[in-house]
């Protein structure tokens, strides 16, 4: 039985992390003012009127605070015990949503409940985080246990699939954030690196596929991807292989021959040396397979898999692009600068950049932004709320928001690190990584750095579901943290 003597309400209040609560309140208030700016209507200047988004958000904020207070009174034990039940219920809810939700702008993720609409995907995050924490908290859990690892991945992938079926790809991608948590908990970095490498191949390959070296029939994209592939494969061999000599042979051989081929093509007879580089990659792959057989090592098998993936990546890219939906492909092409479509797919981002850029150092002042107020930026009070911050509060305000987030995230990491058990730590990191992912994608897309994926900026974007979802995520963790000194059985 847990020792209960410190679990008086007073004791809980004392050990609550008030600093985080303070950050939460600051961010929510700051967010509300931004929404006032974004949803300001010239014909209805009353910002508290319930008919405006700012008025509605005010209500959402109040209810969120009430909700947060309520969550603080629920013991960690309750979450611990009900984690899988909650997970199952939420997955069922996500499944049901697909069938009962009406079609809203192409997605089926919103359930109307009286005057408001709720998005279960926003609430599912905390249940997934809890289930993940609970599963990894079990005795004898190891990331290196393939069976357990696959189950962990399954816990993450299931809600993603369900949300993709709701046609909310953006919200589904948020669940990738959990892989960062897994990394913290001992997942091999090679997986993250593989993902990173895949993104690099994709960006470089797609961006430069139709650019050519001067006077050579060689696509810069193809050349670069193959060169990177050789370097990455060599790097993997160096990191995870037993043979010390192999990486040197591969590096010198690969780069040497590539360089010779390049020079020959550039100065003697222009030819497409990508074929030579492709051959080199295949040679390297074969070499690694040889090593795997020689050393009887699983690592070399995985490296060989990576090598095959890398080699094929460029040729897969176009196929992948073709299989994306039209609007997604256009967004990616616009983002990579391959296409300029200011009236169409590029309109949002271009107008967002104009709005932010026009803010200057100190901004135009509260409620004085013209771009956002005149609705040049679409979704300006939800996904593009950061524009309003940039326009009305300028560089100072926008940087302030980012730094505020950074401090907030840092605080969450330190709270997660001080958890006495895996449950609290994994949950804490989950919360933290979800915030990082939202911040990364949302602000990135507004600034034109990441693809336009419709996910909200926590505490800033207008919307009850997301605010409630983030509040639940955060306050469950705060309650867990408050019990850090309570000894477990």
């Amino acid at each position: 039985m847990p020792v209960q003597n410190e679990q008086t309400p007073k004791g809980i209040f004392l050990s609550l992390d008030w600093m985080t609560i303070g950050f939460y309140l600051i961010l929510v208030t700051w967010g509300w003012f931004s929404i006032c700016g974004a949803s300001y209507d010239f014909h209805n200047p009353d910002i508290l009127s319930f008919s405006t988004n700012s008025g509605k958000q005010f209500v959402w904020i109040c209810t969120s605070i009430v909700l947060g207070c309520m969550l603080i009174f629920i013991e960690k034990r309750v979450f611990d015990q009900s984690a899988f039940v909650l997970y199952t219920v939420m997955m069922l809810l996500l499944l049901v949503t697909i069938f009962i939700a009406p079609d809203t702008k192409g997605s089926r993720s919103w359930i109307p409940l009286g005057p408001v609409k709720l998005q279960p995907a926003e609430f599912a995050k905390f249940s997934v985080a809890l289930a993940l924490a609970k599963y990894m908290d079990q005795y004898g859990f190891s990331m290196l246990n393939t069976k357990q690892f696959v189950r962990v991945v399954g816990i993450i992938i299931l809600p993603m699939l369900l949300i993709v079926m709701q046609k909310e790809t953006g919200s589904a991608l948020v669940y990738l954030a959990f892989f960062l948590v897994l990394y913290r908990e001992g997942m091999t970095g090679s997986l993250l690196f593989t993902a990173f490498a895949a993104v690099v191949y994709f960006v470089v390959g797609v961006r430069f596929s139709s650019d050519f070296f001067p006077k050579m029939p060689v696509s810069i994209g193809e050349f670069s991807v193959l060169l990177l592939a050789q370097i990455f494969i060599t790097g993997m061999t160096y990191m995870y292989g037993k043979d010390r000599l192999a990486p040197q042979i591969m590096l010198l051989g690969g780069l040497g021959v590539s360089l010779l081929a390049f020079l020959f093509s550039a100065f003697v007879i222009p030819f497409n040396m990508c074929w030579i580089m492709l051959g080199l990659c295949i040679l390297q792959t074969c070499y690694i397979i040889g090593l795997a057989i020689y050393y009887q090592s699983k690592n070399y098998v995985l490296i060989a898999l990576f090598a095959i993936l890398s080699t094929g990546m460029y040729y897969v890219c176009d196929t992948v692009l073709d299989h994306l939906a039209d609007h997604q492909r256009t967004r990616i092409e616009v983002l990579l600068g391959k296409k300029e479509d200011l009236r169409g797919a590029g309109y949002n981002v271009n107008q967002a950049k104009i709005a932010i850029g026009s803010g200057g150092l100190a901004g135009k002042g509260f409620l004085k932004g013209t771009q956002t107020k005149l609705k040049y930026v679409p979704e300006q009070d939800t996904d593009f709320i950061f524009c309003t911050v940039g326009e009305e509060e300028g560089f100072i305000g926008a940087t302030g928001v980012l730094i505020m987030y950074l401090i907030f995230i840092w605080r969450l990491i330190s709270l997660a690190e001080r958890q006495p058990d895996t449950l609290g730590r994994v949950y804490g990191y989950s919360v933290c990584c979800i915030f990082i992912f939202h911040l990364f994608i949302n602000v990135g897309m507004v600034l034109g750095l990441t693809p336009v994926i419709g996910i909200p900026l926590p505490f800033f974007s207008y919307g009850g579901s997301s605010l409630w979802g983030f509040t639940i995520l955060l306050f469950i963790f705060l309650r867990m943290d408050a019990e850090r000194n309570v000894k477990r059985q």
Partner: protein
Amino acid sequence: MIGSIAFVIVVAYILRLAYLQLLSSDFKASADNNAFHNNIIYPSRGNIYDRNGELLVFNQPAYDLMVTMREIEDLDTLDFCKTLKMTRKQFDDRMALIKNTSKNPGYSSYTQQLFMNQISSVEYSVLQEKLFRFRGFSVRKRNIRQYAYPNLAHVLGDVAEVSPYDIEKDDYYMAGDYMGKQGVERSYEKDLRGEKGVEVLLRDARGRIQGHYQNGAFDRKPKPGKDLTLSIDIKLQALGERLMEGKLGAIVAIEPKTGEILCMVSSPTYDPRLLEGKERGKKMVEMGQDPLKPLLNRAVLGTYPPGSTFKTSQALTFMQEGVITYKTAYPCSRGFRFGRMKVGCHGHGSPLPLIPAIATSCNGYFCWGLYHMLNDRQKYHTIQDAMTTWKDYMVSMGFGYKLGVDLPSESRGLIPNAQFYDKAFKTWSPLSVISISIGQGEVLLTPLQIANLGATIANRGYYITPHVVKKVKGGALADSLLQKHKTKVAKEYYGYVVEGMRKAVLGGTCKGARNPWFDTCGKTGTAQNPHGQDHSAFMGFAPKDNPQIAICVYVENGKWGATYGVPIGALMMEQYINGKLSPASERKATAFQHRHISYASLIKKELKKMGKELPVVEKKDSAKTKDPKELKKLEEEAKKKAEAAKKAAEEAKKKAAEEAKKKAEEEAKKKAEAAKKAAEEKKRNAVQNAPTTTPVPVSNDSSVVVDSLNAVEPQSQKMRE
């Protein structure tokens, strides 16, 4: 690890923010383009009055139909075209033209484009009711100019849309603005136009106006243009234009004390109303092709040999330089003879001293004067020195350079100097240039400069820069317009010249200018013209003491100065000083109005110059003669031709006119009713055209027409040929 990922992301984003917000200024401009809509409010243009406060030019609202392509929705093209009385094809053509960015470089589907300009109030009232159905179309109000009189076109000028060149020169203007193009409308553009106002409006992403930016803190109210009061006397101007009908030339009258121009007639003229409204371009082209050049303001741009009127300036120069005194007499035996050189003169007593020489306009006297001046090697080392001295005198009298009148363009005329002759001749003597002393040869003056010479003599030695604007309401005239210019001749010498000019009126060449009311001084000019009949000129002023008006009348191919110049000048001075014409003068005026000169050879030559064939000529010619008179009736045109035809016959012109009048009066009494009905419209016009004519002569005119119509046809055809 996770913390550093967050850190890297935040730092990267802050750098990106710095680039967008601090380093790049493109976005700011794009934002302003997005959000601000500057709604221009046009000020009303200043009115123009004559010296007696008569309203000459004023504004009338007109409406421009604007279109914003992006906002057009479900346009009922058929209804739209019907409302605007245009065909579907015209509509399509107009839309295509607006969208053609090479012809309409400022095109944007987001902004208002001019679809049709100057819709009248009547058309607008029809359109207004339906406008709400034509989404994307809106109406912009502006003012167009209206003219109370059909006179004074050259001085008033006109207003038209700015050209790309105007916009480039002055960034006050935007495409579609209007500005003064000629006359005082142009030279006083900055006073007349006022200042545009602006409303800074906020426009949302769908182009809808969302109110004033910062509650109108950046809005500006338009400042109305300033009213101008001209120094022109519109009655005098109207009389001048009437007297010059059917003749080429100019009349300029100046108030000597102030330099104010009392009238500036250039003939042929046109009704300023022709150039208002949508038809301006067409009319400009038509008038531009007219061989008689109605658009040319001959009063300031025509350069003519001044003929004998120039002799006054010579007398003054010679006296000041001591070449002669008023007692000096020169012989003249039917002209100036020197060796084989001969400048002819008419018969008069000889030798003559200065005053009678001016009165009889003796050529010999002034040739001798110049000869002695240029040959005086004791005073001037070379003939060049002498010539330069002579030129300086001329320049001090306002010749050879622009006088600086407040009109957009002015010719400087020509006063030859020593270098001019050095270039023209290898060697030259006084005899080579002797004809400049009698206002012939190389000397060219504008009618304004001749009138200014009159003003200088009237003032006994100075002139104020002539100007047509008396007052700018709420502003001031340029100092240069009020500047007093003293000539190089002392005041005492002017007395002799005045005396000579008075003698000319009492018993010399200007006898026709004599009248019982005031003492007129005058000098005729008969300028030889190598291209045809001599030009008739008159320069004078009145009264002799305390002069109120100085005048120049110049009638091209009018033969003797006394034929047209003197009587027209006399009538003008009478009108101005007495405020009206006596009945006898009125009859004389009507007679002169109808005394036309044939310019058939000139027309032929001009048309040849323009490369037009003769058959075309005839058509052009008739179209042309209709042009300026478009507002008048066909009958009146016919009447004029009839009159001209009568004149061409060698009848005594005055008698003919008087007879016609008497007849007309009788007939008018009989047919008063019928004539009035038939000529009801015509009357109105005639009253406007010639405000000084009384109703009786008007009905009289119409009967004259009936009488002479039959005789007209063959004669006028002959004239054209």
